[in-house]
């Protein structure tokens, strides 16, 4: 009722919409137009820039039935799951152990953040050398000191373990920093109340710290899921997707199709399905986690 009276008296002026224009333009150039190009490719069979044929949803049908794509999808999903199962608890544990105040805080922050500052392909190179049995410290130690035969270039399990460990090393710090920020936001009074109530360290974690980490852990899980599901550079540098296709994740397979074989049509369809899957999973996950909290 009040809305109708105000709209009667207010002058109508929609020029404020022009203020949104810069955003519209930049989003168009950075996201919408490139995406539409891919959509365009995905429904055509392209022989050369001048010679192309409209094929409808044929590529989508093919990609979704492709055995190699399916096994890469399962592999990537398994990898993301393992990444989350390892990095989230480990990151929270690191955050809980980090000092809350004093001179040790900046030192701890820098040490923990160090892996995050290293570029992806450098991380790959570091681990590629580190895990080698002949000249790498890690690989040498496993082979010669522990006496376990370890070779990531030949053994599928070893390659998988190397890539997984590398991701844990590279990205657990992100989870730790997010969780640490969450922990720091808990007022001292909560910990004091816990001392008065004679709560054990576990109770403090379970009833004070963990409930308050909910928000940051939602973000951490989302980021780590999206990132690990789209992982490309590090396994590409370390194993190149091998041995065989043991570490051939979706992104590696996609780039093989798009850049290696130059099959733009199937690659476009592949990209869009990949993109859509990440979007939908993230959306569902985020909605579920934020709703159940209320």
């Amino acid at each position: 009722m009040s809305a109708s009276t105000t709209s009667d008296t207010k002058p109508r002026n929609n020029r404020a919409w022009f203020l949104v224009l810069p955003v519209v333009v930049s989003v168009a150039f950075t996201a919408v137009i490139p995406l539409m190009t891919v959509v365009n490719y995905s429904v055509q069979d392209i022989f050369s820039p001048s010679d192309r044929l409209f094929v409808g949803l044929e590529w989508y049908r093919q990609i979704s039935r492709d055995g190699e794509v399916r096994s890469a999808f399962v592999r990537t999903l398994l990898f993301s799951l393992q990444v989350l199962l390892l990095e989230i608890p480990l990151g929270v544990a690191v955050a809980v152990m980090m000092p809350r105040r004093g001179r040790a805080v900046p030192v701890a922050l820098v040490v923990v953040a160090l892996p995050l500052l290293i570029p992806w392909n450098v991380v790959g190179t570091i681990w590629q050398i580190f895990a080698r049995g002949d000249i790498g410290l890690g690989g040498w130690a496993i082979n010669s000191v522990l006496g376990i035969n370890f070779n990531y270039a030949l053994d599928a399990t070893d390659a998988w373990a190397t890539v997984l460990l590398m991701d844990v090393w590279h990205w657990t710090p992100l989870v730790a920093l997010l969780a640490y920020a969450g922990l720091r936001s808990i007022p001292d009074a909560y910990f004091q109340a816990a001392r008065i109530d004679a709560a054990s360290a576990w109770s403090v974690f379970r009833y004070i710290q963990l409930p308050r980490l909910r928000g940051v852990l939602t973000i951490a899980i989302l980021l780590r899921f999206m990132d690990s599901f789209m992982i490309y550079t590090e396994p590409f540098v370390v194993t190149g997707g091998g041995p065989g296709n043991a570490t051939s994740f979706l992104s590696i397979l996609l780039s093989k199709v798009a850049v290696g074989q130059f099959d733009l049509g199937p690659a476009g369809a592949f990209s869009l399905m990949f993109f859509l899957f990440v979007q939908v999973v993230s959306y569902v996950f985020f909605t579920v986690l934020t709703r159940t909290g209320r």
Partner: protein
Amino acid sequence: MADIRLEGVAHSYDDGKTWAVQPMTMTWEHAKAYALLGPSGCGKTTLLNIISGLLKPTTGRIWFGDREVTGISTAGRNIAQVFQFPVLYEGMSVYDNLAFPLRNRKFPRADTDARVRAVAELLGLTDQLHRPSRRLDAGRQQIVSLGRGLVRSDVAAVLLDEPLTVIDTGLKWTMRSKLKEIHRDTGHTLIYVTHDQTEALTFADRVVVLNAGAVVQSGEPTDLFLAPEHEFVGHFIGSPGMNMLAAELVDGVVRVGAAAVGRALGTGGGLPPGPVRIGVRPEFVRLAAAPTSPGLTARVAEVERMGAYDLVHAGTDGHHLVAKVAGGARCAPGTVQHFGFVAERAFLFRDAVRCGRIAALEGRDGS
């Protein structure tokens, strides 16, 4: 159960460079309600945390009755503490929140249940017991925080650190009377930290005034108002605060500028001459028709009409004097007015500490 005794307790956060709490020795009597009153940053919370054991004092010893607790942890002291804002285990129901301290201490299930229900009854939470604690309003949440302290029947004291800060003004009165009721029913020693004098004066049996980490006066609310022992108490309690006028003591006579105000009566005998300060509450300054003693003559600068009473601001030689008089006072700004002080209520301070009072000059009538 027992008195809480502090023996030379002091605390410094920076290895003795500055002291948040100055060395103090005092006793908190069993079953009394205390208000710890002072401005922000005067060491109230530090002192409270020392009593509860959250903080170990730099020096001194703490006794609960005849048991020394200086080195004993918070959990071992059986203290209840309520903080400025509600502290709840948000994932738990009200019932679980109340039961938590007992479960941690491995109380039998039946005892826990009985205690929780008794405390819920006392605090009026019975119909809220199974609600998630985070769904309650701030006032109720604060009551639950209080309940977590009271659920242990043997608590030595309940410490409240400005517990009504986050509560709406309307609810504050209800909460305060609730607290008084609980104090009456349970007979726990209560220590209530606040910077609000009304809250302190209406709530407590004893008010302890803290300034810069030291206790400047402790006593019943009326003592603090009628007979402040320290300039700070004069300023801090009362609205407006006590008039403080720089004066000179010559031959037993207190002078402001050239005017003789009255005869000095030292607290413990004679006072050596020198600078002093006159302290008299606006409530004990009266308008007079002729020069009186003890009293002053000053020019009226402003009259604030407050309805029930008027505040008459006057000045002489740069000294400022306020009188709180019945509404409709007949004096106009710009006129010269005689003021009389109530003889028993006009004090002398030296180095901020009360050292005597002012009586009428001989041969002139006091008011």
